[in-house]
């Protein structure tokens, strides 16, 4: 699945990084707890979150996350957008709530990686 596919499945809009829309995404993570995101490494992942602060971008950077979807119509501020641009992280905003957004992507075949043991 590409970032463009995610954008279309969620009826989302680009905040930045549209030029990177052909990048592949292999896994997804939906969380409002950043330490949970940091606990499980996934390859070329998209992060869905209702959080909206600079640490979301930093967490994505540390995890090599390629795209962040802000659910519930959340909009990052200019500082966050600039940070994402510098790190080649695509930002999307979707009106869907977390559960629905995750479900729509799951339906399209995107998975969360190995189960927790």
């Amino acid at each position: 699945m590409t970032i463009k596919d995610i954008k279309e499945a969620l009826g989302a809009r680009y905040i930045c990084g549209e030029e990177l829309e052909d990048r592949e995404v292999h896994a997804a993570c939906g969380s409002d707890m950043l330490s949970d995101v940091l606990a499980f490494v996934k390859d070329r992942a998209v992060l869905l979150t209702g959080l909206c602060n600079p640490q979301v971008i930093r967490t994505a950077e540390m995890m090599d996350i390629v795209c962040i979807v802000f659910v519930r119509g959340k909009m990052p501020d200019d500082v966050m957008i600039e940070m994402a641009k510098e790190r080649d992280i695509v930002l999307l905003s979707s009106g869907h709530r977390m559960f629905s957004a995750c479900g729509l992507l799951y339906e399209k075949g995107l998975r969360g990686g190995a189960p927790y043991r």
Partner: protein
Amino acid sequence: MNESITLNYDVDSNDFTRAGEASSSVKRKLKLMGVDPDIIRKVAISLYEGEINMVIHSYGGTIEVIISTDMIEMILRDKGPGIEDTELAMQAGYTTAPDNIRSLGFGAGMGLPNMKKYSDDLKIESVVGKGTTVRMKVYIPKNIS
């Protein structure tokens, strides 16, 4: 790379806009040095959790990162207040973080467990009233260095 390289950073207490800048800088430098991506990720995540801990819990401190051919060592020193029970602090889910930290997405009691998970060696020395020193090592296997 024959000699080791040392990087030094200051970490301010309660500055959540800049929190993570040191980890970000270390990650970029390791990438430029051509270090294996899996090693970089281990360093980045454990250092970032440690840096966030310093911002949340400490009165500020310093981060020293020593990069050598066989390992990357991270030393985080803060000026207090110190951890009363380090064993308890290591338990997944245990937290003393206030509510405003949880609203930022932290304070789930996963910082130290994550640092233990991603580093190959973690040592915490803490004296209440004086401060805490966290030492983490990530080893670079010979075949990928």
